[in-house]
């Protein structure tokens, strides 16, 4: 019984980093209330590859037009199986609410004939409260 418990514990501990690293971005949905002219979202891009990759964060509106948001940091290198927080501050632009997509983009294998850019986008809804 003790051996089984030890095995289960080791398995659980071993699986934890894999599970945590197996997301490209979280959360992918969110609703934020703000009392200021902007709302903030913290997302966590993750690198599921066994190699370091360059990650870019972009913010788009519903029509995939770029949004002038503050992204810290917007471009960075992410180590294998690693994740890091990114703060995105989106202005309301005079509107009472705003829907945006926050996208994590990477080209894991650049400099080849047909490259694939993997893009994971989360949808976020900001409400301005008076």
């Amino acid at each position, binding site marked *: 019984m003790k051996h089984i418990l030890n095995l289960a514990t080791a398995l659980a501990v071993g699986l934890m980093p894999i599970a945590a690293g197996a997301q490209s971005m*979280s959360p*992918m949905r969110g609703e934020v209330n703000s009392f200021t002219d902007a709302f903030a979202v913290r997302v966590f891009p993750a690198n599921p590859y066994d190699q370091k990759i360059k990650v870019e964060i972009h913010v788009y509106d519903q029509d995939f037009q770029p949004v002038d948001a503050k992204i810290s940091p917007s471009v960075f290198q992410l180590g294998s199986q690693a994740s890091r927080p990114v703060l995105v501050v989106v202005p309301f632009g005079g509107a009472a609410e705003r829907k945006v997509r926050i*996208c994590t*983009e990477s080209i894991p294998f650049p400099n080849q*004939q047909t*490259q694939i850019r*993997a*893009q*994971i986008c989360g949808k976020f809804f900001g409400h301005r409260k008076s």
Partner: protein
Amino acid sequence: MTLFRTAFGAALLVACLDHAAMATTQNVIFNGTVTATCTLVVGSNGTMTVSPDLQSLSSHNSGGSAGTVTLTTTGGVSLSVDPVTTTTVPAADSTATTWTPTYSASGAHAIAETASSTALTVPGADLVSVNLAGTKSGSNRFANGNYQATVTLRCE
């Protein structure tokens, strides 16, 4: 006296049973929330080859290969490809090319080759094949040199 002992023993047994019956149970509640998640892992990029009439540069042509991506999701997301905007062509190619990216998937979701968005409602893992075809019309032909294009595969 024997009868008294029997009665007393029986009463004691019933009393003990009562105590056992009074033991209480309490449920321990566990809650968990799984939010929408999508992971894209690019396995390989694609390769395009030119057709004998030099009007098609495609991963579908003989010798070409699709790019492969492993997708894992909880469901509640959608998959799509963007129109190709980033290309590099040889200087000798000055004519227009129409680029058409498509994808198909097998696994938890069976998706026939499409260029449209697909809703992934159920959880699971898929192998996504990404294809790209460039075509020239009229008298235009692909030129000698290196071509490069980037296909964006989006999960949202």
